């Protein structure tokens, strides 16, 4: 599959280099993150169908093959619901998901956004982000920031219930759904607040009693793909910076000849290389890893991406000097995107703690090969203390 992956990567890079450059890109980055004609164009090109099974008219690739397009999306500052429209159709494969929710095939074929209403985007801000609870067959609660909720034709809602966490598919036009568009500081993403008041949870698809495996996969893949996107943002800002260092002259020579600047550029490259190779390794291992291993792997990628991409983008602005602080060069766009994505599904502080706790649980378990959740259960006294760990 590595060949497929390289092929997707190249095709996406070529397309974006040719058709998503200069003025068009700048206009879109100022448009609030939603461009229906661009999303329709990508749907026509088949991007959203890459990881959809062939039985559903998709290309049947695995999610690990499409990581590279998220790298390119970051590198080219692509706007729109790439994450939602690639990931959700591929993972929503429960009986009935595709047959009953026509929005899913529409998202793949026409580019209408899906929205993921997930209170779990960050643990350290759970009070501010909100929560959603399923009681009987009713959904109540709110999430303070949902990507593309105002444009979506389907809300994929993650809710807590008595039997476990569940994934409900909700029509945004359903009674009790309130969507409030918000202004977005991420130039590539539209945001909205979603409130659900007594919404029927089986509005479209009857929900199961426990979708926790699906939820773990949605969150882990979101982390890894966002990490890939952050890698691309770091790469893009590194590339424009190296070019600028060669062109810009002061004291009668290119500023890239000054060692003080050169060393920062070398560090940017080194940090980007480590991040990029970490993401590639995580994608390579994704298919053979156990769910627990993959969860930790994805957290590692996201943690490292959050820290590294922001740092690389900050150096890029510094090396551009005054022009870096303006919107005339791309570096400020890379930086804003990196800042917006940094804490989405956990920044490095939150994820380092989670990874460390997972490693300690595993180590403390009598049988190290067992799932972390089993280990937690067997060490209930320690586990309860971990849950209380202060930030």
């Amino acid at each position: 599959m590595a060949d497929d992956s390289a092929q997707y990567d190249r095709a996406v890079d070529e397309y974006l280099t040719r058709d998503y450059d200069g003025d068009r890109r700048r206009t879109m980055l100022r448009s609030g993150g939603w461009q229906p004609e661009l999303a329709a164009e990508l749907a026509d090109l088949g991007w959203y169908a890459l990881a959809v099974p062939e039985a559903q008219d998709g290309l049947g690739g695995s999610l690990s093959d499409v990581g590279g397009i998220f790298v390119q999306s970051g590198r080219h500052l692509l706007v729109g619901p790439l994450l939602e429209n690639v990931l959700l159709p591929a993972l929503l494969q429960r009986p009935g998901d595709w047959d009953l929710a026509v929005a899913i095939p529409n998202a793949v074929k026409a580019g209408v956004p899906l929205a993921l209403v997930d209170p779990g985007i960050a643990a350290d801000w759970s009070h501010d982000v909100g929560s959603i609870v399923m009681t009987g067959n009713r959904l109540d609660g709110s999430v303070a920031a949902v990507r593309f909720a105002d444009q979506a034709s389907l809300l994929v809602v993650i809710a807590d219930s008595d039997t476990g966490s569940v994934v409900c598919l909700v029509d945004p036009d359903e009674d009790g759904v309130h969507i409030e568009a918000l202004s977005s500081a991420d130039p590539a993403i539209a945001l909205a607040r979603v409130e659900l008041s007594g919404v029927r949870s089986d509005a479209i698809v009857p929900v199961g009693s426990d979708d926790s495996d699906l939820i773990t996969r949605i969150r882990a893949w979101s982390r890894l793909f966002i990490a890939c996107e952050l890698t691309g943002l770091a790469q893009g800002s590194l590339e424009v910076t190296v070019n600028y260092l060669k062109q810009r002259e002061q004291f009668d020579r290119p500023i890239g000849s000054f060692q003080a600047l050169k060393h920062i550029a070398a560090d940017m490259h080194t940090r980007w290389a480590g991040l990029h190779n970490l993401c590639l390794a995580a994608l390579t291992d994704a298919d053979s890893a156990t769910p627990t291993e993959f969860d930790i792997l994805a957290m590692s990628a996201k943690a490292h991406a959050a820290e590294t991409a922001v740092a690389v983008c900050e150096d890029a602005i510094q090396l551009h000097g005054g022009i870096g602080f303006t919107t005339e060069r791309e570096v400020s766009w890379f930086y804003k995107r990196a800042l917006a994505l940094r804490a989405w599904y956990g920044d490095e502080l939150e994820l380092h703690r989670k990874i460390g706790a997972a490693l300690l649980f595993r180590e403390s378990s009598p049988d190290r090969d067992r799932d972390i959740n089993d280990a937690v259960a067997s060490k209930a006294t320690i586990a309860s203390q971990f849950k209380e760990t202060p930030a």
Partner: protein
Amino acid sequence: MTTDDDQPIEDFRATARAWLAATELPVAPLDLDTRFAVLRQWQKTLYEAGWLGIAWSKEAGGQGLSHLHQLAFVEELARAGAPPPIGLIGLEVVGPSIDRYGTDSQRRELLPRLLSGEEIWCQGFSEPDAGSDLASLRTRAVVAGDEFVVSGQKVWTSWAHKAQRCALLVRTDTTVRKQAGISYLLVDMSTEGITTRPIEQMTGDQEFCEVFFDEVRVPRSNLLGNVNEGWAITSHTLGSERAAATLRRRVECEVALSDALTELSARLVATGASDVQDLGRRTTALGRCYTALRALEGQTRQTISRLTDEVGPSPLDSVDKLLLNDVEQTVFAEITRLLGPLRAVPDSRPLGLRSDRWAHEHLFSRAASIYGGSSQIQRNIVAERLLGLPRG
């Protein structure tokens, strides 16, 4: 060990793993003299079992397998928690250069004894006034009949006081560009006129030495390669074998994290709920180490696939070194930060961690960004040769 040239890596790895599991692994003590003796014996054991010089030619006493077999064994050795053999300078730095540039008789005479640990090698490169600017070295060698007469001083020469041989860089021409006047000599350390003086490092070890050469007579047959061509051999030496060192160090860091995890977890299991007031500090440190090591592992995979296609120095080696140094310093800094004030008490076990061991490893990690070309030199290489920024 029975192997053939195209033995699949995974079979080879399994054989190595089985051998390591069935072999009594030495524990390297902190005391330097005892450690030297134990690890020298360990090198002999490894050599006799056929695990050294894996990628070297059979004439040189090696196994004639590929670089990837060599890397696989380095990795398995570290993973088993076994210490590396004592003669790493010979095995990773000097030996490959002799195998590549040496005469038949040099290879036959020197390499088997280098592999077995019978002869320990040191590396006479740096001088008091030639550190990062290595090519400006001033130790002179003058031709007198069939001999070179060497005078000068070397510094930071690890294990010089224990070594039987020295790979010595000398200036043989002062009239040309500085890189073009350097020769590479293979010197017997028992020759008259050589004095070594150990230097105590901040870890407390006395592994480093100053070495003084006072009209030391070296036979012309001990020249490696041609006169005035030593710089190219040095570049080869410093560049192409770095991968083995990087890979070994990566796995050593993985083993360190795993050991720290074991110690922390044993304390938690033993003391239960009374000892968890500061768990956030521990989990954060562990997560940071683990994440850093994943980046290094990803980088290593890329390096290995690169090395299967090309051999020889590349500016990408410098990226590897910068990343490795950053990660190993992060890992040991994070672990030792968990020692808190009891870092000052070597015999204590704060949070279950062995204070003396981790403090020693942490101090040692600070050398990583200095030896083998400082991080600042590596950044120049990355900026100029990889990113194409103009020379200053």
